[in-house]
Structures are given as structure tokens and as C-alpha cells.
């Protein structure tokens, strides 16, 4: 009998090793069932390392190491959900091209492994030499929005107060500079006023140049949780994923957004659909603004935007007081030749309709990178730590006192912006460049500019988790950095929530957290006294908290990482004077008081400027660039390392083209085309779809060839590059 059953099992085996591998183990730690093989013995939660939504991921730990993760249900941001990048956040750590030792370019031009000691001597020796020969203005750094605030802070302090750099900027210039400047000028401080709860509490949600379905899926989750049956309006030249599910889509002509917003203001004022009392009590400059928008009559604006008068009036009527209107913008606004004015025009709309400081309202900038907000306050690039200004003697005094340095040693105006740093390299003024966790050889507008000027550098250092990013390949010295998940620190999300990164996975080889690298550099440079008392990231956090004291972003009430961890993140402000524990979701300006000395918000405006690179007969298409899918991030250095994510986006670069244009060019879906601008060319497959209008093209920004095309135009206030418009032509290959 048993022989028969053994044989029958052998012939039809229902159980065994392979079956067991897939068995799910009963859940612990509130997780529900987890794969048996990856069963955690403990869990800990941390903020995801990609975008500014700032979702919390519950890391499944086994023997002290991360083995898996699930989104954290207890965190007020993401409520147990994550986008594919978050789910796959651990995969890029295991990539084969992680930088595992410092690499130095040798005499024959090859990058060769060296010891940390030699690398640090090279680093300090070369930069000291350049400074000695050419002065402090001959060196610069380009940083990131991807590392914790502590590390940004250490970098800014080390470079500027220790090593004597004057110039330093970050890739946040490419994503958030516009919002930063716009808020600062309008509110008196860079203060996004909202909390994500506002998505759920609005009656009218307006997205301008934002595509949350793809770029911020977890924010879209909150929109879907709105029970007020909201009107969802998308303002975007392209029929984006979000536009397709919105209740209304205004497909305006590219870069006509500023005119549109002034046109809307014109109608609101003319119809009296404004909150006069709020304007009088809490704003300044309205009369001038009113005069300014006088010329933006619906007929003219309807023509400029291509929307027509009627649609414009319909749009304005939706913003009438009486409903909670929230206005949200992202890169479509920020990455523009007049982004600051456009963002301020959005702020103006919120101010004059009184849609600010109340549930479901606000002029709200959805940030890009996970810690762009940390960079904006503490990076010591465009402003001094704590959101202070270089120009302000009292601010310089504060910071000098804190670091026990001579206030006169602090520069009296901000250093050069990203594009200006590159120009200075081109002109031979800057000889040494230090790049941290960013990939300008891929991402910089008119990428060839960066590659060309990088070749002129005497010394290029790239500090990154991968040794083969487009930029690392150009470096003289590569420093191996520990990644997200391999180090500690805090980040600040779009809604000003401070959350934590934790060390849950061992860094490969000799990779070190940027925090340690900066500490070592201070030691080797001989300026380690700057960081006395700051031996751990948490001590750096405490230093930053102290520097935030009495500033609008005051978070001196936060006792430390454990409190942040146990409360599910804490939004600033949270000053020490707060007696109560922080409310989980808070918005700003509920009292109508802004940060300008008069306590009022300021109407900021100026006339729209012509498009810097208009289409011509030779280059008849307007090319827009943007996020390709929810599975891709920036230059794909990390997301491209996950096999699962790679399955979720097209293998080939795509260019969206309208069917009319496609048929004129005899293009079928999937045909290879060359997109050309006077600056370069990119290969892509045609994706024929009426999501763009005739004469427009759209390309995802993740393919390395795309920024060969883009035109280097910059917002005059924020110096943010305008990635959303350049003139190109299309050829069938």
C-alpha cells in the first residue's frame, strides 16, 4: 500500500521543496502573510528614497538585514500604499555596478581602485592646489535632493565654511528652485502651505503641469479618497494619464500658462469672484496686480492659450468663492523660462479667492525629489542653514556664532547657480568640480554643454552609489557612497513632514555614507572642529534643529529620531514652545499671517515673456519632456537596476506624436525616428497618439539621449532650466 502511494506520489507530486518555497507564513508585526523564505524577525519603517511624496516603507528585517518591504499602513502619508519604485526600493542596492572602492584615474586614463586614505589625500590635495592657484571661486560642488538633510547640511557647511568654496548648487535647481523662489517672494519664506489631507477636502482640485497618476501615484490615492465629488481640473498641453481621468482638461498651448492664469485672474476680478476682505487683511500689492491683469481680457487670452473665450470663462467660474479650491503644480510650471511668475500667478489666484489656510485649499507645490525640501532649507547653497539669507548680516552673524567662525568669512551673496557654474567652467574660471549623487551628464539641459565643459575641468570628483553613471564615467576621482537604506538621516517631504532614513542594509565593499565621507574630508582638510560634537547623523539633526530656532521652519520641539519614528513623521513648524504633541496633518497660514515683515502675502507678477526657443519652419515641433512611467526615476540609474521595474516601462525610448503629423511624415506606430534640434539628436520609436496636439511632441526624460535636444533657457529669478519646450524636427529613419 505504502509502496503504491509512494509511487503514485512520485508520479503525481503535490508537495515538495518547490511547493514549500512558495508557502506564505502567518503574518507578524501587523503585516499579514509574508513569503516563508522572507519571514521577518522584526520590522522597522523608513521613508522611501525616491520622490517627495515621502511614503513610509515598512522594512522586513531578518537577522538584522532588510529582506523585503511593504508600505507602512500606519504612516499618515501613504496609508499602506506605495508606487512600484517604493515596492522595489531594495533592488537597486544589490546592483552589480555599485561603487565599492574609491577609483582614481591613472596616467593611462583608466579609473583604478585606490584606498580611502589615498583618495582623500588626492581629494584635499587637488582642491587645495586649485584654490591656492586660482582662488576660492575656482571650485564648486553640485549636490542633490536625494540625500538626507543632515548630509546636505554637512556638505554645505564643510564646503563653504571649511574648505572655502563660494559656489555650490544642487539638482534641486532642476526641479524645485522655482517653487522655492516663488514662495519666498510671495509668502516671505519658502513655505508650501498644505497637507495631503487637502486632496481629500477640496471641492475643486486644479493640477497645473502636474501628472500625479504617474509621477505621484500616492498623492492620487488621496485624491481618490476625496468624498466631496470634486471637480478635478488638469491644465496641461498634453492629455496626460491624470488628464484622462480628470473631470476637465484644459489643453493649453505650450508655455501659455502664465497668460492663462492672468486671464483667469482678470475674469475673477471683473466678475467680483474674489475675497475682498481676505485681500485687504492679508495681502499687499493687489491694486497693482489688478492693473496688471487688466490687459489680459478673455478674448486675447483665449487666443494665446488656444482654449477660446468660453472655456476660459467656464474655468474661471469653477474658481468662484464658496467652494474649497486647491491649486497644485509640479514640473510643468517649475521647469519654465518664467516658472517663478507662473507659480506666483497660481499663488495670486489662491490669495485673491481666499483659498489658503483652510481645509482643501492652497497654492501648493508638489515637490519632486525626496529631500528637495531639506535642500531648500539646509543645503547652504542658495541660502544659509535654517532658510536664512547670505545677504542678511544678522543671519550671517547667527550662523557664524553657531559654528564659531568669523562672520566675515561667510560670503555676502549666494554663489553661482548651476548653469552659471557650468558657464564659469566653460570660461576657465572654475577648475575643480565635486558632484554628489546626481547625474548631470544625463540630466542637464542641453546635456552636451555639461559634457563639453566637464572635459575642461582639472579635477572632477563624483560621489555616487554607482561607479558607472554617465557622470561618474567622466570623473577623475569616484568616491563610493552608501545608498538609501544603508545610512541614517532625515528628509522633508512636500507637505513639510520630516521623516527618517534608516540603516537596514549593509553597504557594499568600502562604500561609506556621505555623512562619514564628509566627516573624513573635514578631517583630511583640517577643518574637523566645525563638526565637533557632530559624530552621528542624529547629532547633525540636533544642530539643524537649533539652527531652525525662531525661524518659520522651527522644529526645535522635535526631541530626536525616536520621536519622529514613533509619531509617523512630524511636519514643521514644531517649535519647542509647542505644548501639545504635533497634530498628524497640519497646514500653514490658518491665522492669515505670512512671513513678510508686514505679515502679508505679496502679489508678484510681470508680463509673460516670449518662448525662448520657438518653433520655426525648419524645427516645426515643440518638444515637451517629462516623466515616462511610475516605474522610472530621473536618469534611471537606480530604477533601471530592478528587473521588475524594467518590465514596467518600454524598453525603447518613445516619442509621442499626433496622428496628423505622423501620417504627414508617413510614420506608423513603433517606427524608429530621429528627433533633432540644432544641439543634437535622439533616436526614439514613434508613439502615435492624440495625447499631444498637432505640432507637439512628448518624450520621457529617462533616456540619456533626450537632453541632447533640450534648449538651455532659464527662469531669470530661479535659474531653473526650462525642460518643457524646445523646437525640434522629426525624421523617419
Amino acid at each position, binding site marked *: 500500500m505504502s509502496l503504491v502511494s509512494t509511487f503514485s506520489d512520485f508520479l503525481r507530486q503535490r508537495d*515538495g521543496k*518547490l511547493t514549500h518555497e512558495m508557502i506564505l507564513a502567518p503574518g507578524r508585526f501587523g503585516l*499579514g502573510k509574508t513569503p516563508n523564505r522572507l519571514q521577518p524577525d522584526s520590522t522597522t519603517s523608513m521613508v522611501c528614497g525616491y520622490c517627495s511624496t515621502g511614503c513610509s516603507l515598512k522594512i522586513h*528585517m531578518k537577522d538584522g538585514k532588510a529582506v523585503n518591504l511593504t508600505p507602512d499602513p500606519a504612516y499618515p502619508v501613504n496609508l499602506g500604499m*506605495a508606487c*512600484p519604485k517604493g515596492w522595489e526600493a531594495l533592488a537597486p542596492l544589490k546592483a552589480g555596478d555599485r561603487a565599492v572602492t574609491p577609483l582614481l584615474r591613472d596616467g593611462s586614463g583608466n579609473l583604478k581602485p585606490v584606498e580611502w586614505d589615498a583618495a582623500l589625500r588626492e581629494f584635499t590635495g587637488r582642491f587645495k592646489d586649485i584654490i591656492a592657484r586660482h582662488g576660492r571661486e575656482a571650485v564648486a560642488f553640485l549636490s542633490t535632493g536625494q540625500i538626507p538633510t543632515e548630509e546636505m547640511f554637512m556638505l554645505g557647511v564643510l564646503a563653504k565654511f571649511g574648505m572655502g568654496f563660494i559656489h555650490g548648487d544642487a539638482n534641486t535647481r532642476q526641479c524645485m528652485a522655482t517653487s522655492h523662489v516663488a514662495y519666498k517672494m510671495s509668502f516671505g519664506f519658502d513655505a508650501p502651505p498644505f497637507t495631503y489631507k487637502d486632496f481629500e477636502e477640496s471641492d475643486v482640485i486644479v493640477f497645473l503641469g502636474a501628472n500625479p497618476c504617474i509621477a505621484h501615484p500616492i498623492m492620487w490615492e488621496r485624491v481618490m479618497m476625496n468624498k466631496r465629488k470634486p471637480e478635478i481640473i488638469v491644465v496641461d498641453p498634453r492629455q496626460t494619464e491624470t488628464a484622462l481621468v480628470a473631470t476637465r482638461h484644459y489643453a493649453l498651448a505650450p508655455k501659455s500658462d502664465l497668460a492663462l492664469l492672468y486671464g483667469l485672474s482678470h475674469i475673477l476680478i471683473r466678475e467680483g469672484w474674489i475675497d475682498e476682505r481676505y485681500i485687504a487683511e492679508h495681502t499687499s500689492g493687489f491694486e497693482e496686480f489688478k492693473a496688471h491683469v487688466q490687459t489680459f481680457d478673455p478674448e486675447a487670452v483665449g487666443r494665446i492659450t488656444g482654449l477660446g473665450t468660453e472655456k476660459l470663462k467656464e474655468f474661471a467660474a469653477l474658481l468662484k468663492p464658496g467652494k474649497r479650491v486647491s491649486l497644485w503644480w509640479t514640473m510643468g510650471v517649475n521647469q519654465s523660462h518664467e516658472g517663478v511668475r507662473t507659480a506666483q500667478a497660481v499663488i495670486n489666484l489662491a490669495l485673491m479667492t481666499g483659498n489658503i489656510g483652510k481645509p482643501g485649499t492652497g497654492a501648493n507645490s508638489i515637490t519632486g525629489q525626496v529631500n528637495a525640501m531639506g535642500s531648500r532649507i539646509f543645503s547652504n547653497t542658495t541660502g544659509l542653514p535654517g532658510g536664512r539669507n547670505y545677504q542678511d548680516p544678522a543671519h550671517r552673524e547667527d550662523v557664524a556664532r553657531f559654528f564659531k567662525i568669523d562672520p566675515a568669512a561667510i560670503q555676502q551673496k549666494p554663489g553661482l547657480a548651476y548653469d552659471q557654474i557650468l558657464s564659469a567652467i566653460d570660461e576657465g574660471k572654475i577648475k575643480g568640480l565635486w558632484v554628489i549623487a546626481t547625474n548631470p551628464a544625463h540630466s542637464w539641459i542641453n546635456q552636451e554643454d555639461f559634457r563639453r565643459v566637464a572635459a575642461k575641468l582639472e579635477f572632477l570628483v563624483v560621489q555616487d552609489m554607482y561607479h558607472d553613471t554617465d557622470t561618474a564615467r567622466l570623473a577623475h576621482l569616484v568616491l563610493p557612497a552608501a545608498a538609501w537604506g544603508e545610512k541614517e538621516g532625515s528628509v522633508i517631504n512636500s507637505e513639510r513632514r520630516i521623516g527618517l532614513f534608516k540603516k537596514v542594509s549593509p553597504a557594499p565593499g568600502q562604500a561609506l555614507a556621505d555623512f562619514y565621507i564628509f566627516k573624513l574630508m573635514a578631517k583630511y582638510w583640517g577643518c574637523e572642529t566645525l563638526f565637533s560634537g557632530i559624530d552621528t547623523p542624529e547629532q547633525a539633526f540636533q544642530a539643524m534643529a537649533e539652527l531652525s530656532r525662531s525661524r518659520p521652519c522651527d522644529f526645535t520641539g522635535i526631541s530626536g529620531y525616536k520621536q519622529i519614528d514613533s509619531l509617523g513623521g512630524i511636519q514643521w513648524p514644531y517649535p519647542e514652545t509647542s505644548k501639545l504633541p504635533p497634530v498628524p496633518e497640519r497646514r500653514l497660514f490658518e491665522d492669515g499671517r505670512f512671513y513678510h515683515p508686514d505679515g502679508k502675502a505679496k502679489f508678484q507678477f510681470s508680463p509673460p515673456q516670449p518662448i525662448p526657443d520657438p518653433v520655426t519652419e525648419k524645427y516645426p515641433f515643440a518638444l515637451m519632456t517629462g516623466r515616462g512611467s511610475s516605474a522610472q526615476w530621473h536618469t534611471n540609474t537606480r530604477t533601471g537596476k530592478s528587473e521588475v521595474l524594467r518590465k514596467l516601462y518600454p524598453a525603447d525610448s518613445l516619442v509621442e506624436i499626433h496622428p496628423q503629423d505622423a501620417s504627414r511624415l508617413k510614420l506608423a506606430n513603433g517606427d524608429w525616428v530621429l528627433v533633432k534640434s540644432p544641439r543634437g539628436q535622439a533616436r526614439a520609436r514613434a508613439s502615435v497618439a492624440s495625447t499631444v496636439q498637432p505640432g507637439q511632441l512628448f518624450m520621457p526624460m529617462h533616456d540619456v539621449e533626450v537632453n541632447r535636444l533640450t534648449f538651455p533657457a532659464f527662469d531669470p529669478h530661479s535659474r531653473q532650466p526650462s525642460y518643457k519646450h524646445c523646437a525640434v524636427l522629426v525624421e523617419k529613419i
Partner: protein
Amino acid sequence: MVQTFPDKVPPSLAKFLGEGPALIGAYLEEQQNLTAVERFSSAHDLMHTGLAGKPQLENHYRDLLPLAMPKPGQQFAFEVDLDRCTGCKACVTACHSLNGLDAGETWRSVGLIHNVIGKPRQQTITTACQHCLEPACSHGCPVKAYEKDPVTGIVKHLDDQCIGCEYCILKCPYDVPQYHHDKGIVRKCDMCVGRLEAGEAPACVQSCPTKAIRITIVDQAEVRKNPDDYTAIPGAPDPRYTHPTTRYKTTRPLSEGMEAADAYKVRKEKAHYPLVFMLTLSQLAAGFLFALEAGTLSGFLPRRPLFQALGHVLGSAVMLLAIAVSVMHLGRPQFAFRAVIGFRRSWLSREIVAFGLLGGLSAIMACATVGLALHPVPGGRLQLLEAFASNTGMRIFMLLACLTAVHASAMVYRDTPRVYWATRMTSAKFLLTSALTGLAGLAAFIACCLASRAFSADASLRAVVLPLCISLPALLIIKLACEARIHKHIDDQDANPLKKTALLLRGELRFAHAWRFNAGLLGGLMLPVFWIYRGDSAGAVFSAVMFAAILILVAAGECLERYLFFTACVPPRMPGA
């Protein structure tokens, strides 16, 4: 208090003496020291001990699960609210992580349909296993590694039973079973049955930020009667083949003119090289043995023991080689014997049994004829051998076995939802390959025999060569004409699978396609015509070389044809990205 720094300097740093290299060492050590758990996790896990075992997400998915078990005639099914799906693809990654799948392995996919003309519309479609009423994977499986649960209707794969033949991949119209190369088996979605049993939601259901996926109970009769959900999705496979159960709901009917975003994408499919060689060799052997037996029975071929022995040894050797090659195709060849148990339903099982029998039979015939050749005097203990070797019944049985095996091979492919395969043309091709390569093989065998001293004087054998040689161009032209028929689809207006096959043959696969024709024409037409033109005058050795070249070229041409048979066959699929 803020001014004090609460955390002590980590002990590994305390020993730092102030020198750079020492500090580097201390930091490298500290970098490897993972402290998150001891610093934070206890607090974290304590927070949830009150919920002991209760999933924190329960409130999120409670109303996304059915309240009761299915009644008889009902089953569980996925229901997708297309209005809520915005294509974030979290479901794909969550399925991957929560089921502990290996790198790159995914059981759910998200496709896109859109319209090219008119007001822009697009819709993402998330798909996993359809848990069909008539699961084709299960029907095709030669080892019964699938079972449909009688209560839940979930189609479950028995991983330990799987031999890795991948036939279910060819059978499933929804591209559901995924081959796992390292493990040598396929795996697939089981609707997270382990979670459902515990009252938890499947990974995709619990991870969807917009609650677009739920588990519902469907009436099986209703599913069978009303396949509209599927026919409504442009580009989706014909639901009548398997009766898929996933329900797709939308308030915005998917308008006319929408199509799969990848409707025009053509890419070559997996080549399955062992199958390419197995099909060519097995058909060569079957054709050869068939011709040998038929020729002997009809008196065209001599019954001379040496000739019969050599012929059967050769035929049987090629047949056994083909079987050996076919086993190489399996992910877990050690369990190949299990393939007999699916005989009642699976054509693959039948093919394996048929070739097993044919291989055994041909080996017995080879032994018998060799025995007879070595001991030409009949009688005594060799009577049995003689009975086998010269028994007409045996030869007829061999003829039938050859036909049955090749027929079973063809049915393996005809019994799939792939239109390029699912026609009588597949049988025609396989039979023609058998005839062409079998006769070329026989001609080469005879020519070699004639070049040897033992057969050089055999006039009756020599007389067979010319008719054989004439038959080759005729068969080849019929075969190529059959193959060329696919090209008429190039002018089809819609992007149907046959058009895509034609496009592939003219595009990505054009070199293989050209060489298939070149090899065939050279080996099957030009060399035979040349030989006929030269006549027998060139000598036996020249003829042997010629016919060997003909056989090699013809077989190479058929291998290429079979390579294209796999690579150019466009399967039905749900819309892709």
C-alpha cells in the same frame, strides 16, 4: 532639550585616536553595523503587538473581499474597476514582493489600450491569471500539474509536479504561466490562495492605492454565457477558448477605434531550439522508417538482411537521438516519465507516448534485423528475431506508428490558441517535412550503400535512386509553396497575428527566412536536378557525396523552417504596454 546631543558616540568610533586612516577604519566598521532594529524596531513592533497577527491593512481591503465562500456553480474571480485604475502598476510589484518571487519574475502585468484617432482615450488593463472555466494550461499539461479547485475555482499549479515542458505557456492565451529558468518549472498566480484562506486579500488587491482590484464571486454559467467583458477589451484573446473569469467593469465604454498600445509591435518569440531539432530529427527518422518499411513491403527496396539491418539501425538511431534531444527541452528531464499521465487530455502527453512507442519499436526492429543479418540461417533461438524482422504485420504497425507520432506532433501545436499553428497546415508541414527529409535520408543511405563494395553490384537498389531523386524537387516545391502562403497576409488591413508573422518573416527574421529558402532550393531542387542531369555516370562515390549534401541541406532547411515556426508564431495576449 536641544543643545545636548543625546546619542552617545558609537563604541566603534570611541576608539578613534585622531588619525585619518584610523578614522576611515572606524567608519568602515560603523558603516557595516546595522542598528536600525535595535534603535527603532522594538518601539515599532511594540506598537502593533496589540494587533497580534491582525494585518494592519485589513480596513483597507475588508470590502474588497467576498463575505462567503462560492456556492456550487460559482467561483472566486478578480474584478477590476477600470475607472479606478490609473496605471501605477503597484499591483505588479506588490505581487512580486509579497509572493517572494525571484528577480524579474512577475505574475501580474499592466497593459494599455488607446485610440489613435479622435478624442484621446486610454485605459490601463491589469491582468493576472484568469482562473478560467476551461483552463487551457491544465488541459495541455502532460503531467497534470494543474488543478482547478472545485470550491474556489482557483487554477493552481503544482510546482513539484511540473517537468518544465512549457507547453502551458503555449496553451495559455493570456501569457500567464511564467517559466523559471533556474528551477526548471513554470509558476503562476494562485490568487494568493493562502491569503484568501486566512481572510487576507491577495497581494494585488491589498496594494492597489485606488482599490481598483477586488475578489468577487461569479456564476460560472453566467461567465460561460456572457463573455462580453473580454470582447469589450480591444486586442484581448477570444474568451470562448478558455472562458476567463476576471470581470472588467467600467462606466466609460471602451470606445470604437481603441486598440492595444502594442497592437503593431512585432517581436520574435522564443526559439525552443531542442524542439526545433527534435521535430526535424523525429520527422526525418519517421519519414525514413516509413519509406523503408513501405518500400520493403511494396518490393521497391530489397529484403537483403544487411540492407535492412543498416537501414533500421540508422532510422532507429536518429529516432532515439530525436527523443534524447526532446528531453533536453525539459526544465526537469528527470521527471519526464510523468508525461504519460496526461494522456487522456494532453496532445503533448500523446506525442511523448507515441514517440516513445515508435522509438522502442524501431529499436526492436533494429535489433531484430541486425540479429538476422549476423545469423542469416533461420531457425532455433533466432526464430523470434526473424518473426519480428520479416513480419509484414510489424512493418505495417511501424507505418502506422510513424504516421501517428507525426500526427501527434502536429496536434501539439494545432491544439493551441495560436492561429499560425492551429490549422491543418501544421499537419501538412510536418508530414511534408517527414516525406522530404525521410526520402532524402533514404536516397543518401542508398547512395552510400551503392558506394560500398557490398552493394556496388546491386542493380535493383541502384534503380531506386532516380525515382527518389525526382521525388525531392516535387516535395520541396509543394512544401515551400505551403510555407509561402503566410505572405499573403502582409496586405491585411488589421494587425492580426498572421500579418505579424508575415512582418516578422520579412523583418527581424528575414535572414533565417532567406536561408531557409536558399538551403531548401539548393538541397532539394538544384543538387537533385544537377544529379539527374549528370546521370549515374559520375560514379558511386560522387553520388554518395551528392546525396549526403542533399540530405544535409534539406535537413538544414527544415531546421530553419522549424526555427521560424516557433519564432514567427505570434501568440494571443492581453494588451501590453
